[in-house]
């Protein structure tokens, strides 16, 4: 798949090993490429406010340990760890507003 800025050259789309010359929709051109989840990073899944942080750098974490409380949609969401590891850095502070996809906690 190629995207060009030259209006005389059409972008292309490859399907089943065949390369078609065709315009792209804006939605297609703007699509985000898939990236596998990094198990060392805890990302925010819903916008909200950090209400409590249970961990600090250096702390060893087991799967299921409470990491922090994220208030979103008027609910206190208990965020627990999906993995084992040691906390490298906490990227947020209590009271901070966070958005979807924002990095909250990083493991070593």
């Amino acid at each position, binding site marked *: 798949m190629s995207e060009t800025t030259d209006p005389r050259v*059409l972008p292309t*789309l490859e*399907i*089943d*090993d*065949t*390369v*078609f*010359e*065709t*315009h*792209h*929709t*804006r*939605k*297609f051109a703007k*699509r*985000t*490429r*898939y990236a596998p989840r990094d198990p060392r990073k805890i990302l925010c899944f819903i*916008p*909200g406010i950090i209400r409590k942080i249970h961990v600090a750098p250096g702390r060893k974490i087991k799967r299921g340990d409470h990491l922090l409380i994220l208030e979103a*949609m008027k609910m206190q969401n208990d965020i627990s760890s999906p993995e084992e590891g040691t906390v490298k850095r906490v990227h947020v502070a209590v009271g901070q*507003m966070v*958005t979807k996809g924002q990095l909250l906690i990083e493991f070593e």
Partner: protein
Amino acid sequence: MSIFSKIAELFKRSETVTRAKDTKAYEKQYAMGKLGARDRIQALLDPDSFQEYDLFVEHRCKDFDMGKKQLPGDGVVTGTGTIEGHPVAIFAQDFTVAGGSLGLMHARKITKIMDHAIKLGIPLIGINDSGGARIQEGVDSLAGYGEIFYRNTRASGVIPQISVILGPCAGGAVYSPALTDFVFVVDKISKMFITGPEVIKTVLGEEISMEDLGGARVHTETSGNAHFFAASEIECFAQIKKLTTFIPWNNRKKADSYPAVPPKPGHRIDRVIPEQPTKPYDIRDVIAALCDDSDFLEVHQGWAANIVVGFARLEGETVGIVGNQPAVLAGVLDVDSSDKAARFVRFCDSFNIPLITLVDLPGYLPGVDQEHAGVIRHGAKLLYAYSEATVPKLTVILRKAYGGGYIAMCSRHLGADFVFAWPTAEIAVMGPEGAANIIFKSEIAASPDPNETRKQKVREYTEKFANPYVAAAAGHIDAVINPEETRGSLIHALRISAAKQDVGPVRKHGIPPF
């Protein structure tokens, strides 16, 4: 009191409602390029055809000093009239009266006209311009919305329903348009969203303008919530008038017939398709060469442009056309295009409009985003819609018809009544490159010159399978036709299938993969 003074009193009372203009509110309305509710109805309906209902309805709210407030017509104008001679029921919310807010009586006026439309079997047009629920009326206002949604659903597939968004339409209110068949929006005037920019900012910390969140362009290009985009209200009304000529009054009637007109000269159907199957062309050039007066009313033009859907006439009779668009994303089916086409097919089936499907697609769009967005579920909608449809179904395969895409685009196997193919058609399980790479994988790998062997195998496969004759030999298509004969063949097929009746098994309703 003499009869004259009684008539004079009627005039006086009517004028108090219709002339009770809040000048400031009107100035604001005009400054935004918006017309008043009555002006809009006048502009849309045939001259002198409007009969207003419920002019003297008043709200009954006593809380919060509302008892002292007079709201002319309770903020909505309702009635019946004609468009190009076709009867319609119409309501128009009046933003100059309490911001067009919806209270119980406002809603009752709307539901009354909706009940009328269903009973009389005439299309319903709703002009939405409202700040939302009338907070002072509390839960009564919510009841009003619910009663409208219920009727929108009951009327679905019985009478055509058209929503025109000419102002804000926010919160629960947007679900009425969403339940109707066609949504019209106007640039810079229409605003639709469930939660507004203010709420999004306070709750989520995301800043966005009203226009970028739910303006006309967003809904015609990104969300697909709106079907028709216009630059002005007047242009919007012209689009609605045109649409009403293509659709029937209700599901028991056919759309009106018009005098047959040949396509405009200059549209050469045999010149549209490039020789190389990987080159694009605009499917609308094929449509223009097929239909009466080359006149095609495209629905959902700005959204999922890789499929084209809309209304046209063949020999004066309305048809619904669905065509893959090779000019955009090679005409693939994906989440949005399947959704778009499926909905259009169901409208046509509900309202006795024969379907013409023009096929040229390489298959489904590959990608993680597509799979994760549910292309299985959305793609299935199109299979469901075509299989379920019992109106005459005519299919023309122009060029590529590969794999699952071939099946989905109203193939014989989904109940097409006529399947024509052009000599340029390639009906196969997949494109020659992909097929050769799989079938001759080991031969290509073992060859001293893999590239040359691959090319040769692709050539062999192309010669053998990239044509309409394998499918023709199996009877999957009915005829291979010269492209120039297409209009004639379609007209013949329409005449032959005019009496088609297809009653499926008894059931309450199917369960489409919504």
